[in-house]
């Protein structure tokens, strides 16, 4: 039998690569076995468009933005893409709940050179990766249906990355505060109204001014503005605000998560 004891040091130290990537790698190994879930990311928006958006468009006609009139599906499609990037990232991030509260995976990781910050970064990046896979599938459908009207559309996938990052960070932070299923219901109480009110189905101008401000504070509003601008080609400097808002949300979320994971697991 060969000796398993330490004679020469195997461990390269200090590490050269960001350790968060190692968690992405671990998750990808697990995920290999359940890639079928990705199909849902493809079919869900297709059903949405076929059975809801197009019939509704026939009913209400187009949407007027500024001096331009858009086909209803071209108005809603990009918003649904933004919402899908959000949901993919946010709900994937909240899957961390099980690992954090019941699993021992993080206990094992934290006894290696991996630190709580690496866990926060790694799980955020992983949620972004999965969300991007959904977004890419969805984007394909929008392209095929001719709902992307501008060359700015080339930036849609990077924009989905920004949305995914913002909501993944927020999701990872949120999950560290959750204790049970009731808390998940509370999250639903925030996420569903946000989906309905963040100009997904009608333009901001339908609201009274006070509510307009409220809507503009919603993170999903910024995601939708970003994708819609790129899809229609009506791009302005405001899109930089959208990116900054979402990026900051992701970074702050990861920072909070890192602190909280430290406090929860390293007692």
């Amino acid at each position, binding site marked *: *039998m*060969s*000796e*398993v*004891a*330490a*004679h*020469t*040091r*195997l*461990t*390269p*130290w*200090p*590490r*050269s*690569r960001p*350790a968060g990537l*190692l968690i992405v*790698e*671990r998750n990808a*190994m*697990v995920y290999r076995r359940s890639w079928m879930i990705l199909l849902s990311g493809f079919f869900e928006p297709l059903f949405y468009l076929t059975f809801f958006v197009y019939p509704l468009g026939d009913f209400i006609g187009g949407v007027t933005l500024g001096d331009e009139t858009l086909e209803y599906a071209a108005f809603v499609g990009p918003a649904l893409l933004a919402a899908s990037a959000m949901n993919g990232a946010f709900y994937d991030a909240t899957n961390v709940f099980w690992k954090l509260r019941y*699993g*021992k*995976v993080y*206990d*094992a*990781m*934290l*006894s*290696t*050179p*991996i*630190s709580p910050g690496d866990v926060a970064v790694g799980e955020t990046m992983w949620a972004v990766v999965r969300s991007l896979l959904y977004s890419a599938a969805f984007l394909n459908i929008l392209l095929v249906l001719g709902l992307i009207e501008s060359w700015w559309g080339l930036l849609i996938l990077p924009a989905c990355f920004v949305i995914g990052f913002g909501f993944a960070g927020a999701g990872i932070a949120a999950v560290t505060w959750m204790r049970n299923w009731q808390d998940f219901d509370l999250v639903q109480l925030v996420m569903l109204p946000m989906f309905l009110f963040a100009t997904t189905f009608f333009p901001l101008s339908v609201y009274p001014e006070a509510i307009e401000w409220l809507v503009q504070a919603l993170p999903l509003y910024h995601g939708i503005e970003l994708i819609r601008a790129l899809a229609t080609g009506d791009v302005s400097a405001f899109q930089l605000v959208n990116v900054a808002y979402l990026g900051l949300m992701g970074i702050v979320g990861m920072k909070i998560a890192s602190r909280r994971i430290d406090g929860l*697991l*390293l*007692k």
Partner: protein
Amino acid sequence: MTTQDGQPLIHARGLVKRFGELVAVDAIDFDLQRGEAFGFLGPNGAGKTSTMRMIGCVSPVSEGTLRVFDLDPAEDGVEIRARLGVVPQEDSLDLELTVRENIIVYGRYFGLARSVLKQRADELLDFVELTERAKDRVEPLSGGMKRRLTIARSLVNEPEVLLLDEPTTGLDPQARHVVWDRLYRLKRQGVTLLLTTHYMDEAEQLCDRLVVMDKGKIVAEGSPRELIERYSTREVVELRFADDDGRPEDFSEWTDGLVSRVEPLPDRVLLYTDDGDAASHGLHERGLVPESILVRRSTLEDVFLHLTGRSLIE
């Protein structure tokens, strides 16, 4: 960066761990030297796990000095963890991965290359005799197999010190012996072992040196043999009585001059003496007739009983 020869790998002085009001580890001192097998022997709640977690840099030190590889856990936790192997009290295997993947992925956390790890995983699985289960999921493995896999995993980074928190608790006797055998081989290969246990036979088998821990404090230190010599006699006579009527209230009149110490327990009476046969013969002559008499060698259990007045396993 590495410790000089002669300098302890782990050094603790006045080490304290508090959880709110509760003092789990109460100002303990110890040193771990390279190449030795050192044990913490103590009952549940003694503070063994709390101590191990502080050493493993997954629990902040409340007070006192702790140096691991002459580094500070609060500052250099990442580097210390890179050089330790950890077998925690509760298995923390990745249930979503296979047996072999568990070792590879764990090795990746140390930044080791996949190509190195593939070979290393096969060697380690061979070492713990799990090669046949390499492609299986972890969940259906027996407790003993999970423990062996956890040990294999902890060796993936060729650690300078292996921390084992109750390595065989909850295993059946046969599985325990398999684990002991592997740990014994590691010891022979020169791996430094730091283990906790509440089994006195485990401590006797594996430890060159140990501390007895109770209620957060270290109450004695030495090799198993030294501890037995210092705190117990060579032999013990165990008396059992059929009922309380046959059991004398006061033993002194029966045992005076025959034994050096009497320890009455609820279910039996222990008589400490260097010559058990002579003592039981003497009792017989004085007319004391218990249901059974057993003469045995002293163990660490007797040491613990003497030091704390309680037995190790309640």
